[in-house]
């Protein structure tokens, strides 16, 4: 137990950030599955309502797998929140959109126009800025 409280805190913060990072990667896979499932659901039911959406979570394989991964990412989030600040960790989830775009590029061969790349860059910069400490 050589670690000083300050060092322990820094290690905890790093661990929390790392957990949220994994949370966003898994969350991206989950979103792609949910989007696929929701699209399928919309084709099966003319006007899906709240009941259909809830039912689809169990009957549609894509939605089911998507929500299962969503659950995994939520568990990681809870573990991260135990040690980190909510106001810092929660917005980091936005990295999910970055991974979704990257995954869509590779899996669905969606294009990455300059506008989209700029958006991705802004999110990454935003996440980097978020974690900065105010020097006193």
């Amino acid at each position, binding site marked *: 137990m050589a670690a000083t409280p300050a060092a322990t805190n820094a290690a905890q913060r790093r661990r929390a950030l790392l957990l949220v990072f994994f949370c966003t990667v898994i969350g991206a896979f989950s979103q792609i599955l949910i989007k696929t499932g929701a699209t399928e659901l919309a084709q099966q039911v003319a006007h899906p309502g709240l009941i259909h*959406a809830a039912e689809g979570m169990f009957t549609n394989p894509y939605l089911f797998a998507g929500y299962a991964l969503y659950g995994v990412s939520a568990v990681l989030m*809870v573990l991260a929140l135990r040690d980190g600040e909510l106001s810092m960790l*929660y*917005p980091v989830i936005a990295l999910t959109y970055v991974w979704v*775009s990257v995954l869509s590029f590779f899996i669905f061969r969606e294009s990455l126009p300059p506008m989209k790349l700029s*958006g991705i860059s*802004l999110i990454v910069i935003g996440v980097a800025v*978020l974690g900065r400490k105010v020097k006193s």
Partner: protein
Amino acid sequence: MALVVVGSFIGSFGAVLLKAGAGRLERSIHSVITNWRLGAGVVLYGLSSVFFVLATTKGELTILYPLVSLGYLWTLIWAKLFFAEPLTRYKFLGVGLILAGVFMLKLSSG
């Protein structure tokens, strides 16, 4: 559109409850099961995503994600209110950049 805003609001409260519950976690199954804050957080989190799925099926995709991200802004406020976390200008700047980024991302993909 209303669906997504309501969903983001519910989701941000879910995050608050998850944080409150996470702080009370111990290394036993019992402490996880009897942690009502955690349970309520998960329910709200799930409920918000049902709203998002509904919104998706109603074809609100372009504005869907930027509005979901409004949850980050709500969460900054709740974190200050409930957990006395410092609201630095970097946090606002960071969330602002993220919101702008998400908006651009969705503008380009439609």
